[in-house]
Structure formats: C-alpha cells, structure tokens
C-alpha cells in the first residue's frame, strides 16, 4: 500500500554522515543453544549502508535503519569494523554477524567481504549465523558460504498472513517469497525464522493467533524459530502510534501463550528473548510480574521445557484474558 510505505518513510530520519564508517555498531556475548547444549555466542553488529527495504520505506516496527551508515561502506572499512569487533572474541562456539539489514545483500556486504568474513569465522568458531531478507537468498551463494563455515541463515518472516505482511508490517514481500528462500536455505544449511508478535492494527488475540499460525508454516522449514514481541524502536511507525496511545506492546502473557501453543505444532527449537521486555517500550504485563514471566520465557528458550510456565499467575492475567475476549469488539 503506497500511502503506508510513504507514512513509514516519512517518520524516519535518513541523516547521512552521522556515523564513522570504521565503527561497528556493537558487540556482546549471549547464551545460545548448539545441538541442545547451552553455549556462549558472540554477536557483532556491523555498520553497513542499511537494509535495502528500510532505505526505500521499511517495516512498520523496525528501527534498525537508525544504526546504518546510509551510504556505502567500503570493503576496507567493513573489514576494519569486523577486525575491531573480533578483538573481543573469546572463542565462543557461535558467532552471529548482523548488519541491521541483510548480510547476503551485496550492496551492504560485498560478495568478497561475505566470503572473507565467513572464511575467517569458519576457522574460529563452530557456527556462524547471518540474517537476510528472502530476496538475497540463492542456492549458489548458499553453497559457497556453507563451504566456508557452518552457516545458519536467519530470515524474518514475521507473519505468514499476506494481509498482515502488507497492511500491518509493510514487509515488502509475501509468504511465497519466504517459502522459496526457506526451501533454498533448507537444502544447504539450517534456517532460523523470526516471527513477530502483535504487529500494529491487530488485537492482542489476533496477534497470538497470527504468531501461532506463522509458527505452523515456518516450522516446516526452520530448525529454530525466534518469537519477537514488538518493541518500540525510534522513528518507527509503531512508535508514532505508541506515542499517541494507539498501540500497546504485547503482553508477556501473549508470548507465553504463543510458546505453549507453538510447541505442539513444531519440532523447531522455539525461543523468545523480548527486546525491552518488562518495560513500556517492550512486551510487558502489569510491570509487577514481568520479571517472573521473563525469566520463565528465558528458561523455556534454553530448555524447551513447557513446565516452566506452570503456576505462573498474577492478577493482571484476568485483565489480559478480558482483553482477549472484548478488544475485538472495538472498531
């Protein structure tokens, strides 16, 4: 929808020259699973020109373009960023190389650099995870990179409902585009899929339904599914709504519900690590019980054990349950 694309674009600040192209965005270490075992993973966010789609318009919930250089970053500068970040590398079993866009997009990371980074990491770590929009996935590229390292591709599907993709997220592609890419990836290496919880204009209940429905489809291709409750990032369309009290981030109860229901539908590894969880900008409940719920969600993500959700209760659950039944009556 043209007007929607425009509105999202107009909310962004495309200010070039804000960042030093030699400086990577950030890096950190976190827990991750490999072959069912909890290990440390090293995460590097490289600064590239930014997501090709976000440069045109972008997703209604995504503000990662805020970290992008917005102009081409030379191979030399990019490799400098990578090398600088790798100084903190501490032999973690997994390295995640993110760009706030698509690692496989040659406009962000040139073919030479993709191969150089994968080649370097192939020798240093057990598994490399990179992200990409479906458009940049092709068999030849996948094969090449998987020879260089044990690579996993993470793709954000967000929703398997084309209306949600178009009218709520402005994702810029359709389910069929994801499926094509997912099949390609699956033939070569493992696939991780990101699913969004409660994009704008959906009720809490529809948000839950949408996420579960998406797990059902993405689960056929993915070895891991990451559930991402919407959080309010700067200069995004959801932030615009949120500031006007026209959008509430999902309840943590909803995340729990999706995880519980999804586990019955897929063998993929389910995880959820809500960005800004327990704050007003992130998924939250009444802000009193949030810690308890977040910790259960984290436990589940590592153990896949549904029993961590047993006996979770807070008075605010009643309000959430009410909401599920009556929110849809509002027009």
């Amino acid at each position: 929808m043209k007007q929607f694309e425009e509105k999202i674009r107009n909310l962004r600040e495309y200010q070039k020259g804000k960042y030093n192209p030699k400086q990577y965005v950030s890096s950190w270490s976190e827990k991750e699973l490999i072959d069912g075992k909890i290990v440390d993973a090293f995460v590097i966010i490289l600064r590239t020109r930014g997501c090709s789609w976000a440069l045109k318009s972008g997703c209604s919930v995504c503000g990662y373009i805020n970290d992008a250089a917005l102009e081409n970053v030379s191979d030399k500068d990019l490799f400098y960023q990578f090398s600088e970040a790798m100084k903190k590398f501490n032999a973690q079993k997994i390295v995640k190389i993110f760009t706030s866009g698509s690692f496989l997009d040659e406009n962000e990371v040139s073919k030479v650099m993709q191969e150089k980074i994968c080649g370097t990491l192939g020798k240093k770590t057990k598994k490399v995870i990179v992200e990409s929009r479906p458009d940049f996935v092709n068999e030849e590229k996948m094969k090449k990179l998987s020879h260089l390292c044990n690579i996993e591709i993470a793709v954000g599907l967000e929703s398997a409902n084309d209306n949600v993709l178009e009218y709520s997220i402005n994702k810029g592609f359709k389910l069929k585009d994801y499926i094509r890419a997912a099949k390609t990836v699956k033939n070569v290496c493992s696939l991780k899929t990101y699913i969004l919880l409660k994009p704008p204009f959906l009720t809490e209940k529809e948000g839950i339904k949408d996420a579960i429905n998406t797990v059902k489809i993405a689960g056929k291709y993915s070895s891991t599914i990451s559930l991402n409750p919407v959080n309010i990032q700067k200069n995004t369309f959801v932030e615009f709504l949120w500031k006007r009290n026209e959008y509430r981030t999902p309840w943590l109860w909803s995340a729990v519900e999706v995880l519980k229901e999804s586990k019955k539908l897929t063998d993929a590894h389910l995880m959820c690590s809500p960005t800004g969880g327990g704050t007003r900008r992130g998924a939250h409940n009444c802000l009193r019980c949030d810690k308890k719920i977040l910790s259960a969600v984290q436990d589940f993500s590592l153990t896949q054990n549904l029993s961590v959700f047993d006996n979770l209760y807070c008075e605010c659950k009643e309000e959430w349950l009410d909401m599920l039944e009556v929110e849809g009556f509002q027009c």
Partner: protein
Amino acid sequence: MFEIVSRDGIGRTGKLDNVNTPNILFAASERFKEFKEAKILLSSRELKSEKMKILDNGSRFYPRNLKNDFVIPPDIPYPLSCSEFFENYENDKIVVVQDIEKLDKNREVYVLSNAPELVKNPKEFVKNVVELRKKIGYSKIVYAPGIGAPNSYALLVYLGIDLFDSVSLIMNSRKKYFLTNDGKTFLEHLKENPCRCPACLDEKSDFVHLLHHNYYTALSEFKNIRNRIKNGLLRELVESRIRTEPLLVSMLRLFDKHYDFQEKYFPVRKEKMIILSKESLLRPGVKRFQSRLKERYLKPESKKILLLLPCSAKKPYSFSISHQLLKKAVFKSGNQNIVHEMIVTSPLGIVPRELELFYPAQNYDIPVTGEWDADEIKMVNEMIDWLIKNNKYDEIINHTGYSFVDAGVNTCPDKPVSQESLKKLEETLSGLVKNYAHVKREKIAVENMLNRAVFQFGSPGVDLVKGSVIKGRYPDLRIIKNNKQIGMLIGDRGMISLTIKGGKILADKRKYFVEIDDFKLKGDVFAVGVLDADHDIRIGDDVIIIHKNVLKGVGVAVMSPEEMMESKRGVAVKVRHKT
C-alpha cells in the same frame, strides 16, 4: 427494521426488531456469560440464544464468516492518526465508519470507529458525531462501541447515539470501579453500598458481582433515559448527569454550538423546560425563541410606549399576582392598549406580552435568587438593545426593578409591586398616554394575534389574521373571518391550531406544508406517503397537508421535515381536520 417511537431533539427512542433503543449490547463470550437482563447480545461466535444478536466478524486480517441478521463486517481498525488509510467496511445492513465523507446512506446501522479514542477529545468527538448524523440522516442507527458509563449515557444519547456495548462496563469493573449515575468510585472506597440492585443484594464484592452491579446500573439508566425522552425531558437529565464529569460538560457546551444542525430536530413545544445551569441558557429551545424574535418579530403597530417588566415565577406571567397588579396599574393609566408590556427574564431575555404563551415562555422554570450572573445580564441587555433598535417606541419605561437594565425611565423606587412603585408607574404612564388617541381592545386583539401568527408561521401569519376578529376569553381565543373560524389560540399549547379554512390560507402561500402522494386521507399521515415538506416545520408545529396545492387536511407535525421525507415508517403528521 428500525422505527423511531419518540423524539426529543437528536435523542430518540425506537424499536430495533422489537428491542427498545437506546440500548446496550452485552458481550457474550466464554468469560462473560450471557447477562439475563440483556436484550441485545454482542458476540464473536455463534450463539444459541433467542435474543437479538449482533455478531462481530473480526478484522480483515482474520475475518470470520458468521451468519446472522446483523453482522459487523471485518475491518482494519485504523486509529485516528491513520486517517489517510480510512475506509468504510460494509455489508447490506451495517457499516463500520471511518471515512464519514464517503458514506453511503442506505444502511441501517452505522458503527462509529475509534469511539474510545475520540471520546477523550470532546471537540473531535462532537464534530464526528455531528458530521456522521448530518451525513446519514435522522432515521439511521448509530452504534458507538467501547464507550459510555451510567453518568454519560444520557449525554451520548442526546448527541444521537442509539447503541452502546458492555465493553466499557467490563473494563471499569476490572479496574474495580463501582459505577453509578453520578460517576464512579473505587469499590473499596465505598463504606456503605448505596445500591439495592439484585447483584448488590448479595453483599459480595468479587468481580462478577461488581460487573453485574455495573450492568444493572447501566440498564436502569437506559430505562431512565427512554422515559425522559418520552416525557420530553432528556435535556434536563443530561444537564444533571454531566455535572459529574467536566469532560461531559465540555461536550454538551461544544454540541450546543452546533445550533443550526440540531435546532431543526427540536420540537416547538414541550410541557416543561427546567433551567438548571449555565448550559440551560444555550439550549436549542431557548436560543430558538431568541432567534425567532430576531427573525420574525415586530411590535404591534398601535403600541407606542415600551414598558419593561420583571418576570414572575407563575406562568403565564399575566396569571401571576404580581402581573395582575402591574396590569392593573397599566389599565388605570387610561389608555392601556398603546403600552407594550415586555417581560425581561432569564433565560429568554425578553418576552413580549402577546407571546407569553408560546413555548418556552409559559413552560420554563428557573432558580430565582434576585442575583443575575454576567452571562444573563449580557444576554438580557442584548435582547433589549435589539428590540429598541428594531422597533420604534416613543417612550421607554423601565419597571423591572433590575439594576442592570438601564434603558428608559425607571419607575421603581423599590420593589416593582410595592405601593409606591405601582403608583409611580401609573402616574408616569398616565402622563404619557394622554397624548395618544384611544386604541380599542378589538384592534389590539387582532394586532396581538397577528404577532402570534407570524411568530408561529412566519409572514403567512399576516394573511391568516389580517381582516379577522378575535373572539373568546384569554388565553383561549378564536380567529374569525367572515363568520368562519380560521384557527384558535389554545392557552395550554400556546400556539394557533388551524381549521381547514385557516389551512387554505397557508396552502396559497405554500408554507408549513406537507405534500403527500395522491391518496385520500383516512387517519394520520405516515412518513412513507410524504413527498415533500417545508423546511421550516418543526415537531409540534401546525402544518397543512397538501397534494399539488390542493389542501387535504391540517394537523400537527410529529417528525422533522427531513425525517418525514427520508423515513419509511411512523406517523409524520397527526391529522386534526380533513377536507
């Protein structure tokens, strides 16, 4: 099918498939069991209940395909900040309204989207409700989901909303609010439960009991509202209910600014008008009396001396003891018929003696303390200024006793009806009236009647009364021309009721007409038979019924002209005489 039963301005009662409106849709779901007192149920699934149901078919993201008489079509619930994406979502009966401009007129129920967001901004809310009603017309149903509480329903109905739902009651209950007609209180702050509804009799304070209390309170307020509409006292209820929340007061004040839009729906006559607050000064019935004076009024020709008088609590004024004393003083001056008695009053400003019977002059009741506030003083002086500028009086005498009226010679050394004041009035008048030829009672009776007729019918009133004689005893007076009665002023009604003879005079002028199709009048005129109607007609007006300029009868309008033309149901004119 919706039929309007009784009207009180934009607010009305009606029947929607045998359910009384205004009313409330009760959500029925897994957690919220069907409330036994509910008349309409709202659900997102099939229900077995025999009651009237409105089913919700979800959104365009996850549409449902429920089948029912009334189904809310799937929408994308764009909030107000996304107005550029607005569209309307409709099936053959119901429209979810986002884009008022683009609405189609031929549906039955219009669902106001974003009502909870709009209602927080009284200006936007009022604007949207007015625009919507302008667009869809009077006889359509407006449903505002997610808003309202027992203290605001009266106002919202007054603004023209017919249907509400229980969602706001549920959310208030979850926040532990105990709702009453005068607002909300946290349940735990209630030392004593003041309510005796079936839920409160149990003396329990859990969620379900609180919810049911709120349900009962809401339903009981709707009964109240419907009664008030039938009795023509909705405005009075509104003015008392809004005292409980500043936002509601703002909303009414903002709505009153849309006078031109709403005035046409307000009857020209009601039994009572109770003035309760500052807002009462701006109610359509008050404002119309003032505008009609400005549009239609000139003093009777023979009146030369303007006498400003105070009002009286008893109505009509001339039946009060004080006015009988004042009239006696005027009579004793020796030429009373050249003296124009003008009652100075709040909220109407001025009431010429000959119009003292016309609504609301004989119907209003206002708290009197002798103190006048700035708004009242300003309004009264504006009306007096207007009168003096637009009518030529030789002399002005101020016998109001109000210190803020500075027009004319003051004849009140103390209270207007003290011996001394009355004497001074009589003496002052005697000195003035002797300069004028005597004017006969018969002549002034015609002039007075002419003014009433013009106030009621506009300029054709002149043709109605010109050349007639007035018979009878005030306030019931007959207008006779060539030994035939043209019409009769009936004291209680304060208006002229036409005979067929009178109707013919109006028919020649094509005023206050209701044009019907070519059929023989049997009983009343139904809206379905109305082809055209004069835009000046108001509910309660005497109207003529014509077909191609041939008079068929006379009667009283039951609907606004707009409703007569657009509605397919109900009586449009109560017929008094047929040709």
